[in-house]
Protein backbone atom coordinates (compact mmCIF):
# COMPACT_ATOMS: atom_id res chain seq x y z
CA UNK A 1 0.00 0.00 0.00
CA UNK A 2 1.20 3.46 -0.76
CA UNK A 3 0.34 6.84 0.70
CA UNK A 4 0.92 10.25 -0.80
CA UNK A 5 1.19 13.33 1.34
CA UNK A 6 1.18 16.83 -0.09
CA UNK A 7 2.23 19.60 2.24
CA UNK A 8 1.70 23.23 1.27
CA UNK A 9 2.29 26.51 3.09
CA UNK A 10 -0.86 28.01 4.59
CA UNK A 11 -2.23 30.89 2.54
CA UNK A 12 -1.57 33.37 5.36
CA UNK A 13 2.11 32.40 5.51
CA UNK A 14 4.62 34.30 3.46
CA UNK A 15 5.89 32.00 0.68
CA UNK A 16 8.87 33.80 -0.87
CA UNK A 17 9.83 30.70 -2.82
CA UNK A 18 6.41 30.49 -4.46
CA UNK A 19 6.51 34.21 -5.22
CA UNK A 20 9.97 33.94 -6.78
CA UNK A 21 8.91 31.01 -8.96
CA UNK A 22 5.82 32.94 -10.03
CA UNK A 23 7.95 35.96 -10.98
CA UNK A 24 10.31 33.73 -12.95
CA UNK A 25 7.40 32.17 -14.85
CA UNK A 26 6.12 35.63 -15.73
CA UNK A 27 9.59 36.71 -16.89
CA UNK A 28 9.72 33.65 -19.12
CA UNK A 29 6.53 34.78 -20.78
CA UNK A 30 4.06 32.35 -19.22
CA UNK A 31 0.94 34.37 -18.75
CA UNK A 32 -1.99 34.15 -16.39
CA UNK A 33 -0.05 32.73 -13.44
CA UNK A 34 -2.03 33.96 -10.46
CA UNK A 35 -0.06 32.35 -7.67
CA UNK A 36 2.48 29.61 -7.02
CA UNK A 37 2.81 27.76 -3.73
CA UNK A 38 5.87 25.61 -3.21
CA UNK A 39 5.36 22.68 -0.87
CA UNK A 40 6.56 19.14 -0.25
CA UNK A 41 5.53 15.76 -1.55
CA UNK A 42 6.07 12.59 0.45
CA UNK A 43 5.51 9.04 -0.71
CA UNK A 44 5.15 6.52 2.06
CA UNK A 45 5.25 2.76 1.43
CA UNK A 46 3.18 0.77 3.87
CA UNK A 47 3.09 -2.88 4.85
CA UNK A 48 -0.46 -2.43 6.13
CA UNK A 49 -3.48 -4.06 4.54
CA UNK A 50 -6.17 -2.14 6.43
CA UNK A 51 -6.49 1.11 4.54
CA UNK A 52 -8.53 2.93 7.16
CA UNK A 53 -6.13 2.04 9.98
CA UNK A 54 -3.20 3.12 7.83
CA UNK A 55 -4.89 6.41 7.02
CA UNK A 56 -5.63 7.07 10.67
CA UNK A 57 -2.06 6.39 11.65
CA UNK A 58 -0.61 8.59 8.91
CA UNK A 59 -3.09 11.35 9.59
CA UNK A 60 -1.84 11.42 13.17
CA UNK A 61 1.78 11.49 11.96
CA UNK A 62 0.97 14.32 9.54
CA UNK A 63 -0.53 16.37 12.31
CA UNK A 64 2.19 15.70 14.88
CA UNK A 65 5.29 15.52 12.78
CA UNK A 66 5.17 15.52 8.99
CA UNK A 67 3.52 18.92 8.76
CA UNK A 68 3.53 21.88 11.12
CA UNK A 69 -0.09 23.05 11.53
CA UNK A 70 1.11 26.55 12.41
CA UNK A 71 2.41 27.14 8.90
CA UNK A 72 1.31 24.24 6.69
CA UNK A 73 -1.71 22.35 5.39
CA UNK A 74 -1.54 18.75 4.25
CA UNK A 75 -3.47 16.43 2.01
CA UNK A 76 -3.22 12.70 2.59
CA UNK A 77 -4.13 10.04 0.04
CA UNK A 78 -3.87 6.32 0.71
CA UNK A 79 -4.20 4.07 -2.30
Amino acid at each position, binding site marked *: MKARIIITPKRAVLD*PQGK*TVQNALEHMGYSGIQAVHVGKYLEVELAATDREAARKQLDDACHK*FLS*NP*VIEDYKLEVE
Partner: protein
Amino acid sequence: MNFVVLQFPASNCDQDAVHVLQNVLGHSARLLWHKETSLGGADAVVIPGGFSYGDYLRTGAIARFSPVMQAVQQFAANGGPVLGICNGFQILCEAGLLPGALIRNRSLQFRCEHVYLKTVTRNSPFTRKIGDSKLLRVPIAHGEGCYFADADTLQRLNAEDRVLWRYVNAQGEPTEISNPNGSLENIAGICSEARNVAGLMPHPERASEPLLGSADGRMIFESLVDSMAERATAKAA
Protein backbone atom coordinates in the same frame (compact mmCIF):
# COMPACT_ATOMS: atom_id res chain seq x y z
CA MET B 1 25.04 27.51 38.63
CA ASN B 2 24.86 24.33 36.60
CA PHE B 3 24.10 24.70 32.92
CA VAL B 4 23.62 22.00 30.36
CA VAL B 5 24.03 22.76 26.68
CA LEU B 6 22.24 20.20 24.52
CA GLN B 7 24.05 18.61 21.64
CA PHE B 8 22.24 17.19 18.61
CA PRO B 9 23.77 15.78 15.46
CA ALA B 10 24.87 18.98 13.62
CA SER B 11 24.55 21.38 16.53
CA ASN B 12 26.93 24.30 16.31
CA CYS B 13 28.09 27.01 18.70
CA ASP B 14 27.43 24.45 21.43
CA GLN B 15 31.09 24.70 22.42
CA ASP B 16 30.88 28.50 22.26
CA ALA B 17 27.94 28.45 24.67
CA VAL B 18 29.84 26.23 27.10
CA HIS B 19 32.88 28.50 26.77
CA VAL B 20 30.92 31.63 27.61
CA LEU B 21 29.09 30.10 30.56
CA GLN B 22 32.19 28.42 31.93
CA ASN B 23 35.17 30.60 31.08
CA VAL B 24 33.61 34.03 30.70
CA LEU B 25 30.94 33.86 33.40
CA GLY B 26 32.55 31.26 35.66
CA HIS B 27 29.71 28.77 35.97
CA SER B 28 29.57 25.05 35.52
CA ALA B 29 28.45 24.10 32.02
CA ARG B 30 28.54 20.79 30.23
CA LEU B 31 27.39 19.37 26.95
CA LEU B 32 24.53 16.90 27.07
CA TRP B 33 24.01 14.48 24.17
CA HIS B 34 20.47 14.44 22.83
CA LYS B 35 20.02 10.72 23.54
CA GLU B 36 20.18 11.37 27.27
CA THR B 37 16.92 11.18 29.15
CA SER B 38 17.88 13.19 32.21
CA LEU B 39 19.19 16.72 32.65
CA GLY B 40 21.23 15.54 35.63
CA GLY B 41 20.13 18.21 38.07
CA ALA B 42 20.89 21.18 35.82
CA ASP B 43 19.67 24.64 36.87
CA ALA B 44 19.21 25.86 33.30
CA VAL B 45 19.22 24.47 29.76
CA VAL B 46 20.67 26.08 26.66
CA ILE B 47 19.63 24.68 23.29
CA PRO B 48 22.31 25.82 20.87
CA GLY B 49 22.29 26.74 17.22
CA GLY B 50 23.10 24.58 14.26
CA PHE B 51 21.28 22.46 11.74
CA SER B 52 20.12 19.50 13.81
CA TYR B 53 19.34 16.49 11.64
CA GLY B 54 20.39 18.47 8.59
CA ASP B 55 17.24 20.61 8.91
CA TYR B 56 15.44 17.69 7.24
CA LEU B 57 11.65 18.00 6.93
CA ARG B 58 11.60 21.34 8.81
CA THR B 59 14.16 23.03 11.04
CA GLY B 60 13.98 21.49 14.50
CA ALA B 61 11.19 19.07 13.52
CA ILE B 62 13.18 15.90 14.18
CA ALA B 63 15.32 17.18 17.07
CA ARG B 64 12.22 18.01 19.04
CA PHE B 65 11.51 14.26 19.33
CA SER B 66 14.99 13.43 20.66
CA PRO B 67 14.87 11.70 24.05
CA VAL B 68 16.41 14.68 25.88
CA MET B 69 13.51 16.90 24.81
CA GLN B 70 11.12 14.93 27.03
CA ALA B 71 13.28 15.92 30.00
CA VAL B 72 13.35 19.53 28.75
CA GLN B 73 9.53 19.58 28.49
CA GLN B 74 9.30 18.38 32.08
CA PHE B 75 11.98 20.82 33.27
CA ALA B 76 10.22 23.73 31.57
CA ALA B 77 6.85 22.70 33.00
CA ASN B 78 8.40 22.93 36.46
CA GLY B 79 9.55 26.48 35.77
CA GLY B 80 13.17 25.70 34.86
CA PRO B 81 14.79 28.25 32.56
CA VAL B 82 15.39 27.19 28.96
CA LEU B 83 17.10 29.36 26.35
CA GLY B 84 17.01 28.39 22.69
CA ILE B 85 19.43 30.07 20.34
CA CYS B 86 18.89 29.98 16.55
CA ASN B 87 18.20 26.29 15.86
CA GLY B 88 17.35 26.06 19.56
CA PHE B 89 14.58 28.61 18.98
CA GLN B 90 13.33 26.58 16.02
CA ILE B 91 13.34 23.40 18.12
CA LEU B 92 11.40 25.10 20.94
CA CYS B 93 8.73 26.29 18.47
CA GLU B 94 8.44 22.82 16.92
CA ALA B 95 8.18 21.33 20.43
CA GLY B 96 5.30 23.67 21.23
CA LEU B 97 7.23 25.23 24.13
CA LEU B 98 7.07 28.53 22.26
CA PRO B 99 4.29 29.64 19.90
CA GLY B 100 4.70 30.29 16.19
CA ALA B 101 7.25 28.97 13.72
CA LEU B 102 10.42 30.02 11.94
CA ILE B 103 10.27 29.84 8.19
CA ARG B 104 12.52 30.58 5.23
CA ASN B 105 13.99 34.10 5.23
CA ARG B 106 11.97 36.42 3.04
CA SER B 107 15.07 37.10 0.93
CA LEU B 108 15.57 33.34 0.45
CA GLN B 109 19.19 34.01 1.42
CA PHE B 110 21.21 32.69 4.30
CA ARG B 111 22.01 35.83 6.29
CA CYS B 112 25.25 36.02 8.24
CA GLU B 113 25.87 39.46 9.71
CA HIS B 114 25.64 41.58 12.84
CA VAL B 115 22.26 43.05 13.77
CA TYR B 116 20.96 45.41 16.41
CA LEU B 117 18.38 44.19 18.89
CA LYS B 118 16.09 46.30 20.96
CA THR B 119 15.05 44.68 24.21
CA VAL B 120 11.30 45.17 24.41
CA THR B 121 10.78 44.13 28.01
CA ARG B 122 12.98 43.62 31.06
CA ASN B 123 10.31 41.45 32.60
CA SER B 124 11.94 38.07 31.87
CA PRO B 125 14.82 35.99 33.24
CA PHE B 126 16.67 36.64 29.99
CA THR B 127 16.45 40.43 29.81
CA ARG B 128 16.35 41.78 33.36
CA LYS B 129 19.98 42.96 33.43
CA ILE B 130 19.94 44.68 30.04
CA GLY B 131 20.21 48.46 30.36
CA ASP B 132 17.12 50.48 29.45
CA SER B 133 18.37 52.21 26.33
CA LYS B 134 20.97 49.58 25.44
CA LEU B 135 20.81 48.13 21.93
CA LEU B 136 22.47 44.74 21.63
CA ARG B 137 24.82 44.22 18.71
CA VAL B 138 24.93 40.48 18.02
CA PRO B 139 25.43 38.24 15.02
CA ILE B 140 22.85 36.20 13.14
CA ALA B 141 23.57 33.23 10.89
CA HIS B 142 20.47 31.57 9.53
CA GLY B 143 18.43 30.77 6.44
CA GLU B 144 15.19 30.13 8.26
CA GLY B 145 14.65 32.79 10.88
CA CYS B 146 11.51 34.50 9.66
CA TYR B 147 9.20 34.46 12.67
CA PHE B 148 5.60 33.66 11.84
CA ALA B 149 2.55 33.35 14.07
CA ASP B 150 -1.14 33.83 13.32
CA ALA B 151 -2.76 37.15 14.15
CA ASP B 152 -4.27 35.95 17.45
CA THR B 153 -0.95 34.60 18.68
CA LEU B 154 0.85 37.82 17.74
CA GLN B 155 -1.75 39.87 19.50
CA ARG B 156 -1.37 37.70 22.59
CA LEU B 157 2.42 37.90 22.54
CA ASN B 158 2.22 41.68 22.51
CA ALA B 159 -0.55 41.93 25.09
CA GLU B 160 1.33 39.63 27.46
CA ASP B 161 4.62 41.47 26.96
CA ARG B 162 6.28 38.35 25.61
CA VAL B 163 8.24 39.79 22.69
CA LEU B 164 11.73 40.05 24.20
CA TRP B 165 13.70 41.45 21.26
CA ARG B 166 13.04 43.14 17.93
CA TYR B 167 15.45 43.78 15.07
CA VAL B 168 16.15 47.51 14.86
CA ASN B 169 18.51 49.93 13.14
CA ALA B 170 21.38 51.67 14.95
CA GLN B 171 18.88 54.30 16.13
CA GLY B 172 16.69 51.66 17.74
CA GLU B 173 13.89 51.85 15.17
CA PRO B 174 12.27 48.62 13.94
CA THR B 175 12.49 49.40 10.22
CA GLU B 176 11.97 47.04 7.32
CA ILE B 177 15.60 47.28 6.28
CA SER B 178 16.80 46.37 9.77
CA ASN B 179 14.72 43.19 9.64
CA PRO B 180 17.13 40.58 8.24
CA ASN B 181 14.65 37.79 7.57
CA GLY B 182 11.13 39.17 7.20
CA SER B 183 10.02 38.27 10.73
CA LEU B 184 6.57 39.58 11.59
CA GLU B 185 6.84 42.83 13.54
CA ASN B 186 10.66 42.49 13.46
CA ILE B 187 10.46 39.82 16.15
CA ALA B 188 13.87 38.36 17.01
CA GLY B 189 12.98 36.58 20.25
CA ILE B 190 10.03 35.71 22.47
CA CYS B 191 9.29 33.99 25.76
CA SER B 192 6.70 31.52 26.98
CA GLU B 193 3.57 32.38 28.91
CA ALA B 194 5.30 31.47 32.20
CA ARG B 195 8.31 33.49 30.94
CA ASN B 196 10.87 30.75 31.76
CA VAL B 197 11.36 29.55 28.17
CA ALA B 198 12.82 31.91 25.58
CA GLY B 199 14.13 31.66 22.05
CA LEU B 200 15.97 34.05 19.77
CA MET B 201 17.52 33.75 16.32
CA PRO B 202 20.70 35.82 16.99
CA HIS B 203 23.72 34.27 18.68
CA PRO B 204 24.55 35.99 22.01
CA GLU B 205 27.25 33.38 22.73
CA ARG B 206 29.20 34.64 19.72
CA ALA B 207 29.21 38.16 21.13
CA SER B 208 30.07 37.83 24.78
CA GLU B 209 33.68 39.05 24.80
CA PRO B 210 35.14 42.36 23.56
CA LEU B 211 37.73 40.38 21.58
CA LEU B 212 34.91 39.16 19.35
CA GLY B 213 33.78 42.68 18.49
CA SER B 214 30.87 42.83 20.90
CA ALA B 215 30.21 41.66 24.45
CA ASP B 216 26.54 42.63 24.36
CA GLY B 217 25.30 39.04 24.24
CA ARG B 218 26.75 38.50 27.67
CA MET B 219 23.94 40.56 29.20
CA ILE B 220 21.45 37.88 28.22
CA PHE B 221 23.44 35.20 30.06
CA GLU B 222 24.04 37.54 33.01
CA SER B 223 20.30 38.18 33.21
CA LEU B 224 19.71 34.44 33.27
CA VAL B 225 22.33 33.87 36.00
CA ASP B 226 20.83 36.69 38.07
CA SER B 227 17.32 35.25 37.85
CA MET B 228 18.60 31.76 38.62
CA ALA B 229 20.32 33.04 41.77
CA GLU B 230 17.04 34.61 42.82
CA ARG B 231 15.18 31.37 42.07
CA ALA B 232 17.68 29.39 44.15
CA THR B 233 17.28 31.78 47.08
CA ALA B 234 13.50 31.60 46.84
CA LYS B 235 13.67 27.80 46.80
CA ALA B 236 15.96 27.70 49.85
CA ALA B 237 13.71 30.07 51.82
